[in-house]
């Protein structure tokens, strides 16, 4: 008997050991260092621009610099003027709409709403000079702003509300002589500040990423691989990979993790299977807005409160604006867990002049397409930005108000604080009808979160999704996920069956005990 028990124990424990040994070890460090070596050595440029005589001159205007660039780079302007950085619209195919022209020009967002009528201010982040409401100068190649992307001296600054021109007083010669490939700071000066302040729009692109630590972004970490934006946003002939779905509609020219990493990079096969339906970002960017806050809600309807006739500003303890008379009230957040949606790489957009079918519901300005059953869809992390923004409930159109002007009296809301007037001027500028009624509508925008990739040890764990309580994917209900979902009938029936069995055993054993006592008494 003892021998048998012993041999059984040995058998069982050896099974446990075998089960444990079958578990694969984690050894993907090798492939990572292979990728790392790709970026360790950077080619030194074959031209030192500081030695070029053509650049050693006292430039009076930024256009003179561009002309000097074009003396050698004779065809570059043609590439640039075809690029998304230069153009304010492009042709895209949208399912259900066909081929449409879409861009900043006609897409409405739920931050500063739209560029029309406000070009002179918006042009601070455009790679051109001399931009006006009329958009003249747009076809002149010497208006290309080479420096904003190629300045390597970190001293080039574009002026506010100057139609894209640089801030007066900067040393154009020094900057021109410094030019080279774009660095994080070249891209960051615009892309980190979209929406009128640091991290307002994206949530995963902000000033801490000029020199991020590994905890902020494992790729761009200056104490790590120190990647530049263009390492992933690979650029050829001034056309860059990568896009943001606030304006893009088609599944093309995307910058992807798979450019460097394999599609199935894990040593664990079950994790690799996940890559069919789960984007890398979903697990590897568990948190965004890790350092500075990002704007989560924008309520335009509260704008216009003046104190003693003057616009006011209210900030929270972190210095984020919570109220501005010109823009309304805001809510911010940091260290946020993303929302998750299905996405197949295509999107639809609200474009100027579209009519809203049901204005009692929240209007999604850029709906991301996708579902579980769509074979091209994956779960991606997004930031959802909510807003309450001006809307004409008679024409059923979102309003493009005139916001910016140099002076009072032109109808600009930021000067005159009159919604009706600003809407009238703004809608006239885009040739759309306006009823004279300004109401407000709730809108949402979906911003895919692609940056701020965390270190491996911080990535999402199985249990954060595969759980009944507060699963990260609790809102994606169109599929069955183990650990989160169960069939109520089976669950109740199964638990009931076990409980009934236990109760039966309890009663049965009590009766046995009683009868055996009685039996003893009788004998």
């Amino acid at each position: 008997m003892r021998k048998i028990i012993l041999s059984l124990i040995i058998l069982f424990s050896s099974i446990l050991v075998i089960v444990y040994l079958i578990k694969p070890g984690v050894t993907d460090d090798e492939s990572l260092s292979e990728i790392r070596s790709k970026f360790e050595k950077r080619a030194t440029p074959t031209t030192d621009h500081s030695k070029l005589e053509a650049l050693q001159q006292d430039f009076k205007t930024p256009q003179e610099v561009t002309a000097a660039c074009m003396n050698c780079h004779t065809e570059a302007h043609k590439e640039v003027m075809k690029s998304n950085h230069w153009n304010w619209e492009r042709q895209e195919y949208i399912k259900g709409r066909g081929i449409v022209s879409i861009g900043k020009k006609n897409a409405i967002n739920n931050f500063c709403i739209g560029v029309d009528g406000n070009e002179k201010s918006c042009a601070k982040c455009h790679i051109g000079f001399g931009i006006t409401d009329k958009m003249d100068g747009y076809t002149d190649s010497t208006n290309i702003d080479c420096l904003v992307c190629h300045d390597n001296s970190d001293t080039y600054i574009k002026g506010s509300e100057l139609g894209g021109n640089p801030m007066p007083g900067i040393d154009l010669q020094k900057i021109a002589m410094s030019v080279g490939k774009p660095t994080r700071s070249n891209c960051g000066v615009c892309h980190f500040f979209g929406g009128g302040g640091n991290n307002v729009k994206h949530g995963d692109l902000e000033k801490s990423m000029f020199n991020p630590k590994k905890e902020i972004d494992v790729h761009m970490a200056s104490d790590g691989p120190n990647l530049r934006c263009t390492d992933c946003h690979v650029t050829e002939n001034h056309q860059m990979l990568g896009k943001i779905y606030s304006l893009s509609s088609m599944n093309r020219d995307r910058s992807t993790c798979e450019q460097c990493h394999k599609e199935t990079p894990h040593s664990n096969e079950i994790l690799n299977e996940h890559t069919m339906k789960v984007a890398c970002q979903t697990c590897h960017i568990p948190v965004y807005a890790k350092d500075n806050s990002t704007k989560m809600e924008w309520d335009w309807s509260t704008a216009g409160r003046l104190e003693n006739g003057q616009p006011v500003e209210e900030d929270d303890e972190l210095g984020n604006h919570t109220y501005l008379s010109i823009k309304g009230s805001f809510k911010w957040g940091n260290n946020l867990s993303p929302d998750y949606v299905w996405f197949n790489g295509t999107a639809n957009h609200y474009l100027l002049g579209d009519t809203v079918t049901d204005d009692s519901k929240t209007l999604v300005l850029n709906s991301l397409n996708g579902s579980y059953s769509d074979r091209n869809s994956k779960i991606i992390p997004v930031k959802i930005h909510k807003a309450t923004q001006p809307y004409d409930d008679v024409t059923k159109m979102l309003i493009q108000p005139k916001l910016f002007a140099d002076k009072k009296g032109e109808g600009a809301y930021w000067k005159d604080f009159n919604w009706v007037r600003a809407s009238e001027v703004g809608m006239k500028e885009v040739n759309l009808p306006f009823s004279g009624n300004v109401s407000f509508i709730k809108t949402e925008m979906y911003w895919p979160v692609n940056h701020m990739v965390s270190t491996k040890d911080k990535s999402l764990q199985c249990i954060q999704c595969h759980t009944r309580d507060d699963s990260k994917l609790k809102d994606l209900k169109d599929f069955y996920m183990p650990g989160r979902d169960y069939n109520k009938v089976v669950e109740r029936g199964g638990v009931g069956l076990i409980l009934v069995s236990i109760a039966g055993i309890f009663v049965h054993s009590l009766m046995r005990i009683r009868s055996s006592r009685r039996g003893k008494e009788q004998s």
Partner: protein
Amino acid sequence: MKKTVYIYKSFERFWHWTQALLIFFLATTGFEIHGSIRFFGYENAVEYHNAASYAFIVLIFFAIFWHLTTGEWKQYVPTMKNIKAEINYYLIGIFRNVPHPTRKTVLSKLNPLQKLVYFGLKILVIPVMVVSGILYMFYRYPQQDSIVGIKIDSLESIAVVHTAGAFLLIAFIVVHLYLMTTGATLTSNLKAMLTGYEEIDGEEKDSSKIFEGRNIAGAEIKKSSN
């Protein structure tokens, strides 16, 4: 007359206990995957569950081979004879210290109720668990054709069947563990399954009644208990 016989062969005991352990382990890891408990950690639970399932399938192959080659499979052919007597025994007779209505012998070691339940397990519950389990493991999401696997549009039906089977097995084990104590003594069945030897009643030579066991009608049970 009581006599000690060698009733459970060594492979049978090995199979029984390994199966017991595997089912216990699969249930623990399985219900962790199902979200009912937390013990090993989700990732470990999935890996252990999958590994144990392969071990279980190997064991099933050995067991099938053993049952076929030794003819022991005949023990599990269900019979409706004496079912009523068995039920009467467990519901009534057992409290009146009536003898078990069927006799345990080497060639008929399962009573009619056991035959029925074990037969159901073997041809229904276990195969359903194995098949649904394999589908569960090799299920692939609706996807592009990058990784080859079985394509089913939703995991839900597979998972629901697999879970329902798991509940049935748990209920079986609960009852099984209790009925284990209803032998000649509380532990005689357990001892028999551990050592192979059990003390059972009388003459072994009457081979004509081997597969049915001795009949004692329900009516007689009542009479004898008066």
